[in-house]
């Protein structure tokens, strides 16, 4: 197998990984700070994509679409937190799952009601579309490089926010001891709304960025949500660093597994059968990875030690 193909696939894995990170970061923050399992996180991803498609379609500007995605998802997140989620912090996890699952259905049918059942159009702006030639002669889509860049920039920004700002200190304190920071005079419910909106905005951004190369349709968030849960379980629940490492691991495992396992199987099987069984096993790859990580470290790579 040529080395160019391997490098290209590693780039693909990285790009997939950083987009997963945008989803997983919000999910892990919300779980870490508020102890809430939010199944509706995928719906916020969808809200971002639809907002971007609608605004980009109306104004012709992809950039305005991105802004709209951030604003719409953050706004939807804040509303959901204030109206529904706030009543669930003290509830059992099963109640949270039930309520946020209901939110998925409400968001999906609501979106269909507004936008219809047919997929929407959202395309990459001309300035960053098409392939570029990288050193070494690899032709790679420029937009995917931009995605990797945005993902890494968001990761650095989040790190700075959590480690270097006052809000970040409050978030970290909230993870450790909720009662104590409330006693210290910090408005905990405002903090929760803020964290929820931040997580939602990241999901919306991911939805808009990915929607431009995939299809913007109802139900697009749920497959990504499942992967994001795998990521935070691998990385350790509540850890942003864990979400980053976990997302890259999942992205690379999924991409490289899908390409190289069938090739590996071809060494000792007939080509057609190797294709089928190789891709079947590759689709289990990330779950096998999750199992192995959990055997080795039951709280995830960067999770708090039990």
């Amino acid at each position, binding site marked *: 197998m*040529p080395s*160019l*193909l391997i490098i*290209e*696939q590693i780039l*693909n894995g990285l*790009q*997939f990984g950083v987009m997963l990170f945008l989803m997983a970061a919000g999910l892990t923050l919300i779980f870490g700070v508020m102890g809430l399992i939010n199944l509706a996180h995928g719906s916020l991803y969808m809200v971002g994509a639809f907002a971007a498609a609608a605004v980009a379609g109306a104004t012709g500007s992809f950039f305005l679409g991105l802004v709209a995605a951030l604003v719409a998802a953050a706004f939807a997140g804040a509303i959901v937190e204030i109206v529904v989620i706030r009543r669930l912090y003290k509830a059992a996890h099963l109640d949270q799952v039930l309520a946020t699952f209901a939110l998925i259905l409400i968001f*999906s*049918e609501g979106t*269909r009601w507004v936008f219809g*059942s*047919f*997929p*929407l*159009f959202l*395309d*990459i702006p001309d300035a960053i*579309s*098409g*392939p570029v030639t990288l050193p070494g002669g690899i*032709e790679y*889509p420029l*937009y*995917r490089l931009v995605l990797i860049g945005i993902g890494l920039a968001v990761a650095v920004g989040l790190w700075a926010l959590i480690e270097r700002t006052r809000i970040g200190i409050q978030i970290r304190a909230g993870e450790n001891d909720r009662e104590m920071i409330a006693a210290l005079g910090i408005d905990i419910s405002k903090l929760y709304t803020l964290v929820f909106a931040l997580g939602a905005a990241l999901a919306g951004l991911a939805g808009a960025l*990915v929607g*431009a*190369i*995939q*299809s*913007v*349709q*109802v*139900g*697009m968030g749920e*497959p990504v949500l499942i992967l994001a849960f795998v990521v935070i379980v691998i990385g350790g629940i509540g850890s942003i660093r864990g979400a980053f490492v976990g997302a890259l691991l999942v992205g690379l495992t999924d*991409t490289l597994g*899908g*390409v190289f396992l*069938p090739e590996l199987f071809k060494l000792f099987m007939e*080509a*057609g059968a190797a*294709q*089928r069984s190789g*891709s*079947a096993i590759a*689709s289990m790859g990330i779950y096998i990875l999750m199992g192995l990580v959990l055997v080795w470290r039951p709280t995830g790579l960067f999770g708090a030690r039990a």
Partner: protein
Amino acid sequence: MNRRVLGAAAVAALCATTAMADIKVGMITTLSGGGAGLGIDVRDGFMLAIAQSGREDIEVVIEDDQRKPDIAVQLSDKLIQSERVDIMTGIIWSNLAMAVVPAAVNQDVFYLSPNAGPSPLAGAGCHPNYFNVAWQNDNLHEAAGAHATAAGYDRSFILAPNYPAGTDALTGYKRFFDGDLAGEVYTQLGQTDYAAEIAQIRASDADSVFFFLPGGMGISFLKQYADSGIDLPVVGPAFSFDQGILQAVEEAALGVVNTSQWSKDIDNPTNAAFVESFQAEYGRLPSLYASQGFDTANLLLSALERAAPSDADAFREALRAADFDSTRGEFSFGPNHHPVQTIYAREVIKEGDVFTNRIIGTALENHSDAYAADCKM
């Protein structure tokens, strides 16, 4: 007292409507969730034909299967046992059809498929009460293979999702493609990122690409393929190029050749009238699914002119005769009650502001299917 009078009036009114609807049709189709666009088109095409017939003695009960086999089975039981429908139709997906159709036709209900055509129902599992008005699943892929051969391609890279219809698609393509394969890849069902597969296409020495990725999968693939800078010709079945999907893909699909038994520019009066009235009624161009729904209803109407469903043998003969004006022009049933029809090669074009298809040639003429010989009825 008043309430009792009203109640009696309501019962009387109910009896009146039941008495008026002599023929009851049950439609189970996908109206919510990911694949809703297809079901909505089939329903709209079907109801358009019923409305145009002017018959008021036909009642259509429409149910949403949410693309879930278990729900489809529940709905089918309800339609047969409590609604007592004479005829059923509507199912889009082959896995749902396999769950519903065999049980339904064995309870003496007629089933007219407007879309799904799984191979078991065309071969050993065929049934006198089952008619497929669309195609056998392999047909459009076979036509794509025939077109690729005719176009002189000899190294195709082919891909489809790893599920039964995906395997059938690649098998169908290979059945009519004479060249070699530069690669054969099974993707995950529901996959949205095709960067890895596109890199494999780039690294291979293919001269053409065939793909079967229905719904959102095809949208993702086409956009990413167009952005990758690879300019190999692409061939596919019409499912990834229907009217709903093209508006979400736009330029990325221009020039792609796809195979279909229907196109809005097939030149016959029925089709012209259908396209015009569909657009007037619903404000959008019809898709091939809409044409299939429309043809299914017209087949049903033509049979009802000759016989009532209560006379099962006569009604079956009337269906088999397929004496209706199809939007496809020539249309007849083979021995396994599946269409014998011409399949066209179409090209994606831009017509004003709208992306649509234009026929560029015939891929297979009077084509039946590979399973008819296994059907004993």
